[in-house]
C-alpha cells in the first residue's frame, strides 16, 4: 500500500465519521436513565423525525418523561409520543408555519379536546400577530369542565377580537367558578360571555377614539 493510498484511506474514514449522525448527540439526555434502552431508541427516533419536520420536541420529551414517571409500558410511551407528534404537526398546519412551540403544544391539546384544525386556523385569522397559547389553552380547559367543544370554540372566537391573555384566563376562571357552584357549563359560559361582551361594548361606547385592541378586563 502506497503512502497515497494510505492517506486516501484515512481521509475516507474521517469523512465517514463526519457524514454519519452522531448517535450520542442524537439522543435526548433527559431520557437517559428514565426509559429502557429499547424504548429510548424508539423515542429518540421520533424526536429526530419531529426535529427534521420542524416540530418542537419539548412536548414530546415531556410526554415520554410523564410516561416514565407514571410507570407506563414502553409500548404505551412510544404510542403516546407518536400520537402527540401527529397532533403537533396538525396544529402547525392549522396555525401556520410561524407558530411558536408553546402555541403548537396548546393547539395539540385543543385538538385532543375535540377542536377541529379549522377552528385553530380561524383563531389565527382573528389574532395573526398575537400568541394563541392562552386562547387555545382556555378552549381546551373549557371543554374539560364540560362545555361542548363547538360552544367553547365559539366563545373563544367571540373574545378573540378584544380579549388579551389575562381576559381569557379571567373568563375561564369565572366559568369554572360558576360550574363549581352548580351552574351548567353551557349556562355559565353564556352568562360570562354576555358579561364580557357587554363590558367590552361599554368601554368602546365610552371611549371614542379608543382602539378596539386596548386591554379590557371583563
Amino acid at each position, binding site marked *: 500500500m502506497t503512502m497515497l493510498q494510505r492517506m486516501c484511506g484515512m481521509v475516507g474514514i474521517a469523512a465517514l465519521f463526519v457524514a454519519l449522525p452522531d448517535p450520542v448527540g442524537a439522543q435526548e439526555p*433527559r431520557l437517559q436513565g428514565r426509559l429502557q434502552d429499547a424504548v429510548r431508541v424508539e423515542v429518540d427516533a421520533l424526536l429526530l423525525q419531529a426535529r427534521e419536520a420542524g416540530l418542537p420536541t419539548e412536548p414530546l420529551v*415531556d*410526554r415520554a*418523561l*410523564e*410516561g*416514565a*414517571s*407514571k410507570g*407506563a409500558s414502553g409500548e*404505551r*410511551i412510544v*404510542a*403516546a409520543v407518536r*400520537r*402527540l407528534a401527529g397532533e403537533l404537526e396538525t396544529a402547525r398546519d392549522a396555525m401556520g408555519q410561524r407558530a411558536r412551540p*408553546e402555541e403548537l*403544544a*396548546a393547539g*395539540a*391539546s385543543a385538538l*385532543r*379536546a375535540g377542536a377541529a384544525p379549522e377552528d385553530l386556523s380561524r383563531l389565527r385569522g382573528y389574532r395573526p400577530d398575537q*400568541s394563541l*397559547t*392562552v386562547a387555545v*389553552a*382556555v378552549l*381546551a*380547559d373549557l*371543554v*374539560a*369542565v364540560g362545555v361542548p367543544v363547538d360552544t367553547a370554540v365559539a366563545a373563544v372566537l367571540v373574545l378573540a377580537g378584544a380579549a*388579551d*391573555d*389575562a381576559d*381569557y*384566563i*379571567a373568563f*375561564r*376562571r369565572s366559568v*369554572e367558578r360558576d360550574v363549581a357552584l352548580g351552574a351548567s357549563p353551557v349556562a355559565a359560559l353564556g352568562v360570562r360571555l354576555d358579561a364580557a361582551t357587554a363590558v367590552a361594548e361599554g368601554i368602546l361606547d365610552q371611549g371614542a377614539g379608543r382602539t378596539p385592541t386596548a*386591554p379590557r378586563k371583563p
Partner: protein
Amino acid sequence: MSEHDEWFEQVAQVLREPVRLDPSFDRRVMDEVARSPAPGSRLRVLELRRPFAGRLPLASPLGGAALAAAALVGVLIGRSWLAQGDTGAALSTPVAATVGVAPVQFVIVVPGASSVTLVGDFNDWSRTATPLEPAPSDGVWSVTVPLQAGRYRYAFLVDGSRWLTDPSAPRTLDDDFGPPNSVVTVGAT
C-alpha cells in the same frame, strides 16, 4: 327550669350583651383595609395567603375575645370544609397572568399524607424534585414554583405512590398514561 338551663341562660345573657369596642377600632380597621393592596395581582394574592403572617388589630380585651371566638368558629368551619376525605382539596387556583416569570402557588389538602410532591412538565416529571411543604394546618401542603408563560401539565404524587389531580384546576383531556393530570396556564400579558 333545671340547674343546667339556668346556667345556660346566664351564659346566653352574657353573650347577648353588645360587645363594646374601642371607639377608634373601626377607624383603625378601615385604615388597615385602605392600606392593603387591591386584589388582582397574583403576587399580592400570594402575600395575603401567607399563613399566620397578618396581625389582628385587637382594640380591647373584650374585642379581642370576640375576634378570637370568631376566629375559632372560622377555623372549625374551615377544618370541616377542608376535610374532604383523602381525595385532596385545593385552596388555590394556580393560574397567573403576569409578564415573564410568574410565581405560581400550588396548594392541596391531603390529610394523613407523609409526603406530597409536585410532578409535571416544569420539572421533567421528576417524582422528587419539587416537594410540597406541610402547613401548620393539618393536611395542607403547598409550594410556589416560578413559571414562564405557557401551559403546563402536572399532578400531585402522595406518599410516592398515589397520583392526585388539583381539584381547583382544569383537568387535561390528553391523559395517555392512566392517572389524569391538571393543567395550569400562565399568561404572557
